[in-house]
């Protein structure tokens, strides 16, 4: 296979991995103000993602690095063009990182409430902007013949892109709820399951609309045929429909698998709709950046391909192992969290 296509797919896979993994972290963050009844349950929710959120975020870092390395022109136009949107993302992500680190550092209820909300706001904000940003790649933004973005922040907002942003938020909240249903126990788990049921129909409905809309936008703005974008979009709609069925059927394992699949297929639909371009120009379609035009040299791609093929399986192996180590449910009376143990041990 052509290395340029391989790297376009790989970046799609990295984004899909990021959405799949950080998606439920964000979802858990979004549910923090609503789901838990007391501090113990809030801590339990934090603990379900505590050991893994940082590793999950690295998927984004690698997606960014891979874009820089494999498609310098794409990276340059995208990051300079979406400047203020990315500044907001950075703000939300930084605030969220701090909430994990600082929340436990004081007993004050106000301090803890502040950082709980910081996590929620960071999660909602970052999800919303990622949805809007990725949708804009297909929808098109003003790009001149030199490949420079000529618009401003407001150009990123259109009914379709905002709908995509809201979809990502809702989908992540739903995904987070199915994750919590798997990872918590007792009363908290019951409420997580109830929340998953409540979120399932709106999330699946909005998701289905956004998937269909993406295919329409791809045909309208990016000169695509109905097929292939229709394939991942249709599968995505099926996955979300099954997720609804499974959460109501109380089958939490497969329900989580379906929200995960729905999330991945949303990214797959976007990337399938995008190919062979990486950014559509709304100024003049001919100004659009393409996989071929934006890519690095064959040698650079070959080097990175070798590295990626060797290291990626190892990463998947140890990240998978981490999830295995922390597979125990948390939040029930019978299981004591290390955080609590630590606090008792330190008297903090």
């Amino acid at each position, binding site marked *: 296979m052509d290395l340029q296509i391989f790297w376009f797919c790989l970046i799609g896979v990295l984004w899909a991995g990021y959405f799949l993994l950080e998606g439920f972290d964000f979802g858990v963050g979004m549910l923090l103000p609503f789901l838990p009844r007391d501090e113990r349950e809030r801590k339990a929710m*934090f603990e379900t993602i505590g050991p893994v959120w940082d590793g999950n975020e690295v998927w984004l870092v690698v997606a960014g690095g891979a874009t820089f390395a494999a498609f310098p022109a794409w990276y340059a136009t995208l990051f*300079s063009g979406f400047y203020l949107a990315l500044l907001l993302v950075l703000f939300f992500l*930084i605030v969220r990182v701090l909430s994990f680190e600082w929340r436990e550092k004081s007993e004050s209820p106000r301090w803890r409430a502040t950082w709980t909300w910081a996590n929620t706001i960071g999660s909602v904000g970052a999800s919303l902007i990622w949805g809007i940003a990725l949708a804009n790649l297909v929808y098109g933004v003003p790009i001149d013949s*030199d490949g420079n973005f000529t618009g401003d922040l407001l150009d990123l907002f259109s009914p379709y892109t905002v709908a995509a942003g809201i979809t990502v938020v809702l989908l992540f909240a739903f995904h987070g709820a199915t994750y919590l249903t798997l990872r918590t126990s007792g009363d908290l788990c019951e409420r997580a399951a109830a929340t998953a049921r409540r979120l399932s129909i709106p999330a699946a409905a909005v998701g289905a609309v956004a998937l269909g809309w993406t295919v329409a936008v791809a045909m309208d703005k990016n000169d695509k045929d109905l097929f292939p974008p229709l394939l991942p979009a249709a599968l995505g709609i099926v996955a979300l429909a099954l997720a609804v069925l499974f959460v109501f059927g109380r089958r939490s394992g497969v329900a989580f698998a379906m929200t995960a699949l729905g999330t991945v297929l949303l990214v797959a639909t976007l990337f399938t709709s995008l190919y062979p371009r990486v950014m559509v120009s709304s100024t003049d379609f001919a100004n659009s950046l393409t996989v071929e035009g934006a890519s690095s040299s064959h040698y650079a791609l070959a080097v990175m391909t070798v590295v990626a093929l060797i290291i990626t399986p190892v990463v998947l192996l140890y*990240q998978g192992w981490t999830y295995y180590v922390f597979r125990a449910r948390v939040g029930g009376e019978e299981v004591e969290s290390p955080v609590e143990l630590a606090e008792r041990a330190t008297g903090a």
Partner: protein
Amino acid sequence: MTLAVTTVDLARIQFATTTLYHFLFVPLTLGLAPLVAVMQTLWHRSGDETWLRLTRFFGTLMLINFAIGVATGLVQEFQFGMNWSVYSEFVGDVFGAPLAIEGLAAFFLEATFLGLWIFGWNRLPPRIHLATIWIAAAGTWLSAYFILVANSWMQHPVGYKIVNGKAELTSVWALLSNGFALRAYLHVILAGLIFGSLVMLGVSCWHFLRGHNVELYRRAAKLALIVAVPVTLLQLIVGNRFGEAVTSAQSMKIAASEAQWNTCQPCGFSAFQIGGFTEDDQTPKFSITIPRLLSYMATGSFDGEVQGLNQLQAEEESKFGPGNYMPNVRVIYWSMRVMAYTGVLMFLVAAVGAWLYWKQKLERARWFQRTAIVAIAFPYIAATAGWILTEMGRQPWIVQDLLRTEDANSPSVSTATIAFSLGVFYALYITLGVVDFVLMRRYARAEPPELGEEDGEAAVPAVGY
């Protein structure tokens, strides 16, 4: 020179701010991670709970520090494209690879295994749990290598050719074995170990001064000194040798760092001078010069020739056309001296500390304890000065001899936009810095907790995100 602030100026201020800030946290992680791993290993081997308590204590400091490194690190990757899109497109083929590999090979290791370490105390078998901190530490060292490969390519480009006005990678081996990068890597790793050991020493001395648990902190101080003495000494040698690499790759940087206006042979080292920092004022009003030392530092021989700024400027003009090819001499001269002099001071602190320890006077020598607390600031000062020297010394180039900084920023980003983002970063980073400082101080001053009664609890550290 005009007074108007340009987009490039603001983009540079933003890069300098965010990068120097990020590098306040990175080296402490580079140094504390292996030290914590060593302490946990000592506990694992001996079963002596003193080491477990020290592991917890310094582990907590490491994690508070690490979190800020993660938070500010995201900005690093994004801002190349955000503020420097022309640069990104020019270098991506070469520069992007080490950045992507850093994420894939190193960041995943760090993030995943630190998560396992923090939350795995009573879920993993002790040996495997011990392995997680070593792997996380290895991840931090690996990431430093790849990012310095990338940075060193900007200082001394190798393994590339220019195709259609862009750099293209021709040899990944040349890129990874760039002599400049290997020296810079050693320099930074040693800096990290100096950060780790001097912070450990300073914190231990603070507790000596308060009479807290002297037995416990004597152990910490001993470990810190065992690392600090050889490492601060080695750093003086490595720093000097690194200077030689710079001489061959970036003559202008060395000439500026010595305010050496005219070619000399042999050359004296200006230890201190007043004036002599601008083209109109090339002769210092006052200076203290050590004969032949500059020749040795720059070339490795006491008779070596060092080219002067004036000659280099003429040479560059004939090569690249008219323009000013000199960095800001005053800034470069002083950043070099601040770094080097602080480096010597750090060695003295370590050496005197070791001597006092040897004489069993460390716990009582209050004057030294106060000095060691102040010395916590030294590695921060030295590292900041070092990066100012490295990056400002390369100006006017963003990639040495290939691309000028003034041509490398994002054409689509306005001055107002950068000014706004600069405001956001300042507000965020100042808040972050204040809270982090308060937290670090609180946890550094707290006495390490007694261990719980049950073994299971005893094994849980006072850490967690």
